[in-house]
């Protein structure tokens, strides 16, 4: 209704991501040679001063990487040229103990992402990754007093107390043989978080980590390993935002979550990658008896995305719930979903996803439910709602089920819809512009996800949707 919103409407292809797209001077950071050889892997390993077994794992993974084919069943990743992706960029600072010691430009980056505020409010700890290295990490007294460990994964590896535990869990859920990019990750992983919550410890405020890709053409291979012991409880938040570049960017992180008996883990993510990103992330959780994993997932940005968090329910009465939203705009092909393996009696899984596609964006929802012969009396429900904002966009649903057990109850439901003109008219008749009206409807559509997020993340997600919706009306 104002002059400026009138103007914004004319820019259809590009949205103002200046809030998120800012590039820091990376000139004095050391780039490793492009291309992937055992030498590079050795060099990465050496710099980290890590145990020999880790180097072995890396080299093994590299071999597997070269053997495995590029996946051909999803969106094309032909635009990726692995030989020219600088896999590792070391930031200028080592890990920081206090916010005051973080260099100004890095601080500025985090400031713009709102991290210090978030921390000040109530978060227990921040492990924020700048490029491939953990540069800033702090943890509130209370959490560590409770015996919770939250640190960079390299740092934990140096501690004899944790080295063994990491050895026993690292890439056990996601073996390098899983797929080509899991192998790549295994070879060149760098940075990430290690969280250990001891038996019976319940943290009632979330831990959060903010990843950020900053170097031109650099990949990001952070590894997150979380172990929540029996009867313990944790909420972990992972958030991403990246600046925009012309060179293809790759993200191939890995998240491995171990949920103990009757333990509870909520893993929330908002991924907001720049529009040239290939996001080939792998996330997996395993639950023991009575364990409960909750995934909350918002996927924004990226050029191409493959993302299917997986829950393996390995003990009786284990539960998994997945609530996710994917927003695919112009030039984006996002293939997302969820996998569940019911591998014990009386397990329960629910998958609820929303997908939005706009301006020719392609959003594919892929789900897989496997019930093994152990899955007596288990149940799973899968529901996917898609919203297409115009005729140029696409939305597909590909559900798969493999049930090897009787007495398993599996429900599936998928709907594809559009924004009703009557709704837009109703809102406009009350004084909202067309863009405001559509944004409100889309935010409402996303509400089942945003309501699961802590307030500031819900606000961020609403802002992201608003950004995506801007200029939607030509």
């Amino acid at each position, binding site marked *: 209704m104002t002059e400026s919103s009138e103007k914004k409407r004319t820019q259809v292809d590009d949205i103002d991501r200046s809030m998120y797209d800012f590039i820091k001077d990376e000139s004095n950071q050391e780039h490793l040679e492009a291309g992937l050889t055992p030498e590079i892997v050795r060099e990465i390993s050496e710099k980290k001063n890590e145990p020999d077994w880790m180097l072995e794992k890396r080299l093994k993974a590299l071999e597997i990487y070269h053997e495995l084919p590029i996946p051909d069943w999803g969106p094309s990743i032909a635009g990726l040229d692995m030989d020219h992706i600088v896999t590792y960029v070391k930031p200028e600072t080592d890990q920081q103990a206090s916010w005051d010691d973080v260099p100004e430009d890095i601080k500025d980056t985090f400031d713009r992402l709102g991290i210090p505020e978030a921390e000040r409010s109530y978060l227990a700890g921040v492990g924020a990754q700048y490029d491939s290295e953990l540069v800033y990490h702090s943890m509130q007294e209370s959490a560590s007093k409770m015996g919770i460990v939250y640190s960079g994964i390299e740092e934990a590896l140096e501690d004899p107390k944790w080295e063994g535990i990491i050895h026993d869990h690292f890439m056990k859920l996601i073996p390098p043989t899983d797929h080509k990019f899991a192998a790549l990750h295994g070879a060149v992983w760098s940075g990430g978080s290690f969280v250990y919550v001891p038996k019976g410890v319940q943290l009632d405020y979330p831990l959060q980590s903010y990843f950020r890709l900053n170097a031109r053409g650099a990949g990001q291979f952070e590894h997150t390993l979380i172990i929540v012991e029996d009867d313990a409880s944790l909420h972990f938040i992972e958030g991403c935002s990246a600046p925009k570049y012309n060179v293809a960017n790759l993200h191939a992180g890995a998240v491995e979550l171990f949920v103990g008996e009757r333990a509870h883990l909520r893993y929330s993510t908002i991924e907001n990658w720049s529009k040239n990103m290939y996001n080939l992330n792998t996330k997996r959780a395993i639950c023991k008896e009575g364990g409960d994993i909750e995934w909350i997932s918002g996927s924004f940005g990226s050029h191409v995305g493959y993302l299917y968090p997986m829950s393996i329910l390995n003990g009786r009465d284990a539960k998994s719930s997945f609530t996710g939203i994917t927003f695919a705009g112009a030039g984006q092909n996002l293939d997302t979903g969820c996998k569940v393996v019911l591998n014990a009696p009386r397990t329960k899984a629910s998958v609820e996803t929303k997908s939005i596609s706009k301006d020719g964006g392609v959003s594919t929802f892929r789900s897989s439910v496997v019930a093994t012969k152990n899955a007596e009396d288990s149940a799973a429900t899968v529901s996917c709602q898609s919203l297409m904002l115009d005729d140029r966009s696409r939305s597909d649903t590909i559900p798969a089920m493999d049930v090897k057990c009787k007495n398993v109850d599996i429900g599936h439901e998928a709907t594809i819809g559009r924004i009703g003109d*009557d709704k837009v008219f109703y809102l406009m008749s009350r004084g909202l512009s067309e863009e405001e009206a559509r944004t*409100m409807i889309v935010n409402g559509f996303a509400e089942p996800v945003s309501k699961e997020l802590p307030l500031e993340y819900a606000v961020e997600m609403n802002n992201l949707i608003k950004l995506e919706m801007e200029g939607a009306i030509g």
Partner: protein
Amino acid sequence: MSDALLSVRNLSAGVDGKEILHSVDLDVEEGGVHVLMGPNGAGKSTLGHVIMGEPTYDVTGGTITFGGEDVTELSPDKRSLAGMFLSFQAPVEIPGVPLSSFLRAIASARPELDMKRKEFRKRVRELADELDMDRAYLDRELGVGFSGGEKKKVEMLQLLLLKPRLAILDEADSGLDVDALSVVSRGMELYRRECNGTLLVITHNTRILEHLDVDKVHVMVRGSMVTEGDASMIADIDTNGFEQFESLAQAR
């Protein structure tokens, strides 16, 4: 050019090449209470929606003037901000959007209603109380799972919140129980009193009009305005129905 607040001249409109409104004329005086009646399917709602600028309908001829300005080409939001309001016969549902957030959004689109959050909440609660609405409704998703009567109350709440210069109430009374009916009546009176509002009431139910001083009654049959008169027409229509106007519509 009349000095009416709303002036519809020679308005023809339809969908997909099918004309629904045929050269309609209508004047609504500032501060007046006008009633629009007509059999089912006559085009009353269509007229309301076209006046409000619903893009589904193509205006094939004529003009709509509001407050002396030609609004025929304006988008619905601009008409709303200019002071026009349409209460829907069938209000929509917007899942995931709490009624309170929606109200906040439509209020903050207007500078005169841009108040502090706290003040706003107080205002909305007062209105909910006024309309015998459970305050818990404010946290519910707009329209979702609301009964027909509850939806109508939400329309009234918006009317009282936005205080438009002109309110077109499309069957604000249909499907209401006795209590809700008196609540809506009260809302209409309040709007008249507090905002010196102008009403165009579309209804089949004369009861809602009992407490209002009706200035003029317009009758529409099969897409045409067939006659208009004073409040006494209401009783006449009540007894004799619309049959008497059929020939007038055919004559056109």
